[in-house]
Every structure is written in C-alpha cells, then in structure tokens.
C-alpha cells in the first residue's frame, strides 16, 4: 500500500519531471543523424558456372546470366550535418541484364533519382532464317533456296534499355513537386507471320522502338484538403515503318505475287492531364474527386495499297483517301468518391466512375483495296472490295455503394452494390448494364483465427444485342454470296452474362507454432443467351500455406495451389455461297469444343539463421505443372445431307512443367566479409503440338494445297545446373 507521504513525493516528482520536459529542447535533425549511422553499404560480387541447356531461349527468357556478376550493390552515404544523402542500388549486372537505381538529395527537401534498367528477352535461339536483309525490315530470298538446310541460325531476342530521371521537391510540409522523364529503347526482333492469302512466311520482325514518357505533378496537401495535378506526355517512335519480303513460293497464280509488304506499328503520341482533390468534411466524411482528360494521336503516312509496281500501274488503281489516318482518341476519366462514418461501427462509401473513349478518328472509305499484293480485283455488287474503317469507342461507367459494419476492432462486414454500364459505338450491343450485389466478412482475432469471405453475384444484360449490326455498319456489306454473321452468336464481352464470384480464406491459430492458412476461389460466368460463341467460363482454385517455425530463426514452409479453368464454345461450320452452289448454313454442322486447364503449383522450403543470423540457409523447391485438354465434337448427324464437320477432333494434350530447386548458404569469414554459395537446378519441359509440327516441318514446306515457311523454332525444353559463389563485403 502506498502511503500518503510516498504519494506526495511522487506527485512532486511528477511536477518536477514535467517542468523539466517543458524546458527540454527537441533534438535537432542533425543531432539525430549524427547519433544514427546510415545503413551499411554492401557489395556482393561473384562467379557463376552453368551446365546444361543454357542455350535454350526459354532458359534466357527474361535474363542473361553472366559468368561474373555483381548480385547486389547497396551503397549508402549520408552527411549528417547538412542532411544530404546518396544511395545506389544495383543488381545482376551483366551485359544485357542490369538494374540500377541511384537516389540522392536532402532529407525532407528534395530528391533526385536516376535509374537504368536493361531487360533481355530471348525468344528463340534455334530458328533459321534464309532471307538476306537488304535494309531495315527488308528481306530478300536468294534464288534457289527453298529449304532450311544450310540457312544460318537466327537468334530472336528483344532488349529494353530504359532510363529514368526524376526530381521531387518538398519546399514545405504542404507542397510536393515532381518531374519524371523516362526514355526507353527497344531493339531486337520477334517472329511475325506474313502471308499471301493462304501461304505463310514467318520472318523476324525488326523492333527498333523508342518511347518517351514525361510526367510533371504537383500537390498541395493541408490537414483538411488536398489538391493534386499532373501532366503526362508519351510518345512512341518506330524506326522501321514496314516489312517487305520477296516471295519464297513459285509465282504461279495471282495469289502469290513476287513480293509483299505489311505495316509495322505506327508512331503515336498520347497526352493526359489529371487533377484530383480531396476534402475532409464533418462526421469523418471525405470526398475525393479526379478528372483526367487525355488524347491519343497517330498520323503516320499510309503505305501504298501494294508494293507491286504492276498493280500500281493499272489505270483503275485507287488513290488513298487520305495521306494518313489523323487518328485521334479523346479520353476522359472521372472518379468521385464519398466515404464517411455514420456511427462508430458503421461506415459507407459511394463511388461513381466514368471512362470515356471518344474515337474521333476519321472514317475513311478505301475502294478496291488490294488484299494480298497480288491483283487488283474490281469491286462489284457480288464481291465488293470497298472497306471503311470504323472508329470504335465506348464509355464505361461504374457506381458502387458500400456499407460496412465493424462490430469489433477485429471484424467487419460489408454489403455492396455495383452497377456497370458500357455504351459502345459500332458494336453489336450498343449498351449493356451489369448489376452486382455481394457481401464480405473479415475477421481475425488476436489468437490468430481469421476468416475472410466474399460472395458476389452479377448479372449483365445488353439492352439490345444486334448480331447483324456489324454487317450493316460495314458500308460495302458482306457481298451477295457471303453468309453474314451467325444470328445466334453472342460475343462474350458484350453478351448477357451471369457471374458468381466468391472467395473464402481461413487462417488457423498456431498449433504448436504451426501456422496454417487456406483459401478457395470460384469464378463462374455463364452466357445464357449465347447459342454460339462462348457458352461458359468457369474457374476455381484452392490454395494452402503452412509454416512451422522450429526456432525463432528457423522456419519451414510449404504451399500448394490448384487452379482449374474450363471454357466451352459452340460454333457452326458454314460454307459461303458461290456462283456455282448455294450456301450451307445448316445447324447440322454445329460443333462444340470444351477446354480445360489444370494447374498445380507446389512449393516447400526452409529459411534458417544461425549464430544470430550471421549464417543463413535458404532452400526452396517449386514445381508448377499445367495441362490443357481440348475436346471437340460434332453436334450433327453425319448421315444427313450437307454434313460438313469432318475435322472435329480432340487435340493432343498439352502441358508444361517448371521445376526449380535453390539452395543458398551465406556464412561469415570476417566481421565484414561473408561468402554465399548457391546451387540452382532448373528444369522446364513442354509438350506443345503447335511447335512440334513446326519441328516436323521446318522451313518451306507444302502442307496440303498451300505453302508455308517458318523460322523453325524448336521446343523450349531445358534443364540446367547453376553454381555460384559470391562474396559479400559490408563496409
């Protein structure tokens, strides 16, 4: 029991202490920095040895492993008195694979950042190319070459070099100003298909892109309100405007001309502004609003209809309706959000969002267009050859209402309603509305029990779906002999759809330190009014995660995820009419395809630290396995007259497997030097009928009645061992 005397002494001490605190000065920033050293500077350099199929493109898909490397460079420097600092972080530096970020400035006042990243993306190392390049994007076939044998190997890869420069200023507590400039250069080539009607030639499409991104932003933030404004300018430039190639096939009919040309991505530019504001109102209410107008522009000069001088010389060769598209899309994004609290336990939020893409691109009429660089057909009523581009646009609107009840500190329930509307131009469904209602429950107590659940149901309905709209809007029409659109088709992105979506996850409290969590997700979309096209799109999956801390610094963990995706579509084999025979559009030629993907992902490992985490062991094994099955069947009677569906068959099962075993051990030698030894085993296997056929039929080949020439990329399959030893130096 406390006596009256001791209580009095304590009160006096309290008053004395309070008076002392009142007189004490708050430590200056410089004093704080002097007392607290900056983070240590670390350098990790090493050597690496690889064995196995390292030449396979899949292995180098997004990396370029050099024999020597700087795995990590983390340099920190501070001037405590002035408050200036400089930091440099860099990792995995090799010729084609580097990432660096430097920041510097004055704490709380300004910051300058500079980054340099290089991304290497190998596409193929096994393709062979028999063309001779006569200029950027120009491919000439030497006479007499019709097979891949002897053709040089052609590595296909992309490389992105991006630089970022940024300055941010904080002149006062309220103001924040930023400037960011990021140019990027993309070079390399990727496989691209080219064709004359049904003859195919695959070529390495050159990429010589440059993009620039300049962003300016300013913000004023006061305790009760905030205003942000920004401007962003983007541009894209392609050095190669078109791809030209000579025909590799005998020029024996009008569909196989001597040469062809296609347009490569055109230069474009975009500009956007954004202004956002937020204000705090009474009763914890807050309003946030954003308005962001933008423009996208493209006016690259059109290439001629054809590269063929013979066709260009014809008297009825059409003139281009304009020298360029002068394409212009205007976007406007608006977002308004109101959040607040009614009582302590109840809160709400209401949001309205709109994104409008107003396509103001001119609609041009191209008469007598030349489809395949081959001939100049004359437009007739039976076979119209005029086409008009359609400026597609849309407006997407969303409104959400959320009502949240938090009965305790650890639990909350939410009920919500969402409305989404699409207004489209030049599409089958001019307008559709989707209504979603749902609820969620989130609870987690201090013992570690937790349940999170979400369930929602959506129904999307187009106000009027006109499957024939495309024909009507395409000015020249499909022609007398063409069937036009199948009336029962409903495109999945516009069709009526009911959707069930739900997730539930459970977290159990540690049992003898073992932590366990599991989750289930289901997403089921059904297109009830679609007789043809996508019928349903269903996926579900489970995941679980367990960890067992054997000791505070030793932890075992494992996880497993399974996902199943199923799609179904129905179609009809249709035969256009010809002058010789009528069309065949019988429902007896309907066919249906069911596609199923199963994906399993396992992982298990250990993280362990010994001797106060100076020795660290990290091991992990991960395995991902994906399988695809596509079954297809005719729905008609083969015995009936006019039955066409003779090619409905199940495809061979496809699949891929990726395994990775990693073991890493870091141990100290001296106080500032540590070694790290790492062993990685990777294995990737794929079964893909699409590429197997290419392997079986490399180069120019004759499949059926038509010719095809491919680069001959082989299956991306590899297994590789990687051993690396690196040295940490801590300054």
């Amino acid at each position, binding site marked *: 029991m406390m006596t009256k005397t001791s209580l009095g002494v304590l009160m006096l001490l309290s008053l004395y202490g309070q008076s002392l605190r009142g007189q004490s000065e708050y430590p200056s920033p410089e004093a704080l920095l002097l007392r607290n050293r900056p983070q240590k500077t670390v350098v990790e350099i090493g050597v690496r040895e690889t064995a196995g199929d390292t030449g396979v493109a899949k292995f180098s898909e997004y990396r370029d492993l050099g024999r020597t490397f700087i795995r990590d460079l983390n340099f920190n420097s501070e001037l405590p008195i002035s408050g200036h600092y400089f930091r440099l972080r860099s990792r995995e530096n090799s010729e084609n694979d580097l990432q660096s970020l430097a920041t510097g400035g004055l704490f709380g006042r300004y910051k300058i950042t500079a980054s340099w990243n290089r991304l290497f993306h190998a596409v193929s190392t096994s393709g062979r190319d028999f063309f001779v390049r006569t200029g950027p994007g120009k491919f000439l076939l030497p006479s007499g070459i019709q097979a891949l044998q002897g053709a040089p190997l052609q590595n296909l890869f992309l490389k992105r070099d991006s630089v970022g420069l940024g300055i941010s200023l904080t002149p006062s507590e309220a103001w924040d100003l930023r400037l960011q400039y990021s140019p990027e250069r993309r070079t390399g080539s990727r496989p691209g298909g080219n064709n004359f009607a049904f003859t195919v030639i695959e070529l390495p499409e050159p990429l010589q892109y440059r993009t620039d991104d300049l962003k300016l932003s300013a913000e004023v933030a006061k305790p009760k309100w905030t205003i942000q404004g920004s401007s962003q300018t983007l541009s894209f430039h392609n050095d190669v405007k078109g791809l030209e190639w000579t025909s590799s096939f005998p020029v024996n009919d009008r569909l196989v001309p001597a040469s062809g040309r296609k347009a490569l991505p055109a230069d474009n530019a975009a500009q956007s502004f954004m202004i956002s504001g937020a204000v705090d109102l009474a009763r914890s209410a807050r309003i946030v609003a954003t308005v962001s107008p933008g423009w996208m522009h493209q006016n690259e000069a059109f290439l001629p209809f054809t590269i063929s001088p013979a066709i260009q010389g014809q008297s009825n060769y059409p003139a281009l309706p304009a020298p360029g598209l002068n394409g212009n899309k205007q976007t406007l994004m608006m977002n308004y959000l109101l959040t607040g609290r009614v009582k302590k336990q109840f809160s709400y939020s209401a949001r309205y969002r709109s994104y409008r893409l107003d396509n103001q691109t001119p609609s041009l009429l191209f008469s007598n267009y030349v489809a395949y660089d081959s001939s100049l057909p004359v437009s007739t009523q039976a076979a119209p050859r005029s086409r008009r581009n359609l400026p597609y646009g849309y407006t997407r609107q969303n409104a959400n209402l959320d009502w949240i009840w938090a009965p305790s*500190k650890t639990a909350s329930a939410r009920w919500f309603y969402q409305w989404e509307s699409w207004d489209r131009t030049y599409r089958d469904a001019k307008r559709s509305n989707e209504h979603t209602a749902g609820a969620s429950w989130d609870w987690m107590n201090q013992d570690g029990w937790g349940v999170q659940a979400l369930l929602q149901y959506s129904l999307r309905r187009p106000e009027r779906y006109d499957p024939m709209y495309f024909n009507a809007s395409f000015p020249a029409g499909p022609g007398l002999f063409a069937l036009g*659109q199948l009336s029962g088709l409903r495109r999945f992105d516009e069709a009526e759809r009911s959707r069930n979506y739900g997730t539930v996850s459970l977290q159990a409290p540690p049992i003898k330190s073992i932590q366990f969590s599991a989750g289930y997700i289901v997403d089921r979309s059904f297109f009830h009014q679609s007789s043809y096209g996508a019928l349903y799109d269903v996926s579900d999956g489970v995941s679980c995660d367990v960890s067992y801390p054997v000791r505070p610094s030793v932890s075992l963990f494992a996880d497993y995820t399974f996902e199943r995706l199923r799609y179904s579509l129905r179609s009809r084999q249709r035969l256009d009419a010809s002058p010789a025979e009528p069309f065949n559009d019988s429902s007896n030629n309907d066919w249906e395809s069911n596609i199923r993907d199963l994906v399993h992902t396992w992982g298990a490992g250990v993280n362990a630290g010994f001797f106060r985490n100076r020795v660290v062991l990290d091991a992990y094994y991960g395995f991902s396995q994906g399988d695809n099955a596509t079954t297809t069947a005719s729905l008609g009677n083969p015995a009936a007259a006019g039955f066409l569906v003779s090619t409905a068959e199940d495809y061979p099962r496809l699949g891929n497997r990726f395994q990775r075993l990693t073991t890493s051990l870091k141990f100290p030698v001296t106080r500032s030097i540590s070694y790290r030894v790492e062993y990685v085993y990777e294995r990737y296997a794929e079964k893909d009928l699409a*590429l197997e056929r290419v392997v079986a039929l490399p180069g120019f080949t004759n499949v059926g009645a038509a010719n095809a020439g491919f680069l001959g990329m082989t299956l991306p399959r590899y297994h590789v061992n990687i051993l690396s030893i690196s040295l940490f130096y801590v300054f």
Partner: protein
Amino acid sequence: MPVRRQRPMCGCPLPIRGGLFLSLLLAGAWPLRGEDPQAIGTTVAVTPETCRRCHRDHYDAWARSTHARIDGRLYKSPGKQGCEACHGSGEDHVQSGNRALIFRFTGNSPEAVENACLKCHQRGNRLYWRGSPHESRNITCTNCHTLHKQPYPVLHASRFLEKPLETRLLAKQTSMEVCFQCHLMQKAQLQRSSHMPLREGKLTCVDCHNPHGTATPKLLRENSINENCYRCHAEKRGPFLWEHPPVAENCLNCHQAHGSIHEKLLKLRTPRLCQQCHVRGGHPTLPQVASNRLIYNLGCANCHSQIHGSNHPSGVRFHR
C-alpha cells in the same frame, strides 16, 4: 485471403508501482482519451531520447528509418516529430508507464491505425486509401508496413527476385512477398510458363497496381486497363486505321496478365480463342484438325499477325 497481423511490438514495464496509481489519478482528472492519437493532443513534446530509455530496439529501428531522417526537417510541429508523430502524446505514458495511455498500433482497430499514419500520409499515392478495396476489407497500414521490425533475412533465393526499389518500410523483405501474403493465387500464376518478368525481378506488383487505392478498378495505376498495358507496350496504343474492337476495349479479353500456361499470356490457345467470336463463315468456322498449319506455330496469327491493329490500307483483316 488470410492476412497476417503483426505481433505485439513491445511490452512496457512499469517504472514504479506508484506511477500507475498516479497516472490513474491524472487520467481521471484529464479529458477521456480516444483511440485516435490526433485526439490526444500534445502539449509538451516527449523526445525520442525519452522513449529510448525503455524502448531501445524500437528506437534503433526508428533511427535507421527515413522517418528519423526527415524528423524536424519537413514536419516541424511538435505533434509530428519523433515517436509522438505516430504514437500521440507520450506524456502520460512516460509519467505512468501505463501502456494504455499511449497509442499503440497493436490491438487497435484498423481505422485507428490508419488514422495515425494518414496524419502525414494521406496524400500522394494514398489519396484514395479511404474507400479502397483493401481498406474496406479491414486491411490497414501495419499489415504491409512496419517500422520497428526488421524483416527476416531471407536470401531472396527461394522467393521472387525484386528489382531495386526505394525502401518502403515493408513488413516483408520485398513488396511482392507482402502482396503474396494474401494473393496466393497470383503468386502461383507467376510460376507458369507464360508470365511477365516478375519472378525474374524485372517487374513488381506495384508497377501496375497501387495497393493504396486508385481511381481505376483493380487498383490499376493508369486510367484504364489498356492504358496500364500501353505503358510498356506503347506500340499497341494506336489509334489504328483498322482496330479490333475487343482489343481496343480491354486487353484482358484475350490475355491473362498474371500468368498462363498458354503462349503470350493468352487465356486460350488459338484458334479456339478467336473462334469464340468469329463464326461468320469460311475457315474460322472449321474445327480444324490438329495437324493443320492454322493450328501450329502462331496459330491464327501466322497470317493475322497485326491482330492488335493495323495501319495498312489493305490491313482490314489484320494481315498487313
């Protein structure tokens, strides 16, 4: 998906037994304290050095952070400096040692925690935090960020690499590990054969998403899904002379952004992907045998290679 809460960060021993009694007396005389540290008010600053006497580890962690480095430079009012910037006035707590008399992040409601952080951070990327999907699911700042706890020193070997980022006081060593605490399905999808370079450390979740809330659905950084994709794929921005409407509207009509077992992040393989919509006549309506050249290699894109849009006057079928 489960959210791992931070464990209690500290315990505060009572300096003297009488302090509790005194603090109760003082607490009774003073206005009732709320959970919100803003409501506590600050009259006399308790310096970080004061807190250091009992909370050495927490002080050290704070002193290593950017919080300590901008302390007194940017925010100069007493309530926004030192430990009191986050924990509210520490005067009563110092006098009494009673942990109930100072704002603590553990055991408090998500709203109270975020109120403490948003005093300074309700700006920039956090403008849309209130009302965001994460906030409405009871997620709060300390589920992803921590100041006083160093993440476990994993060597990055077993998990995803991450490109160099500025330190964000994350509860895990990398930002992706923070996201994967709950988003296990996305974590698994990144392991698939067709994926964006996240597991190689060239991209992170936050390159496309702003987890603090945005004006766009799915917490996307840009104004629409397509504008998000155009940041890296600017050649597909257009406008094109011949546009493919589902492409111009939503890249995700055909692509699975987080990973797929099909090439080029496609949801389905061609030709089935295309045959969901193209039943107009001719070869797109045939089921096609597996040995047909329309199936292998690039599938439909063997010929229709400009499927994202063409600017060629003869490119109406996206083959020029």
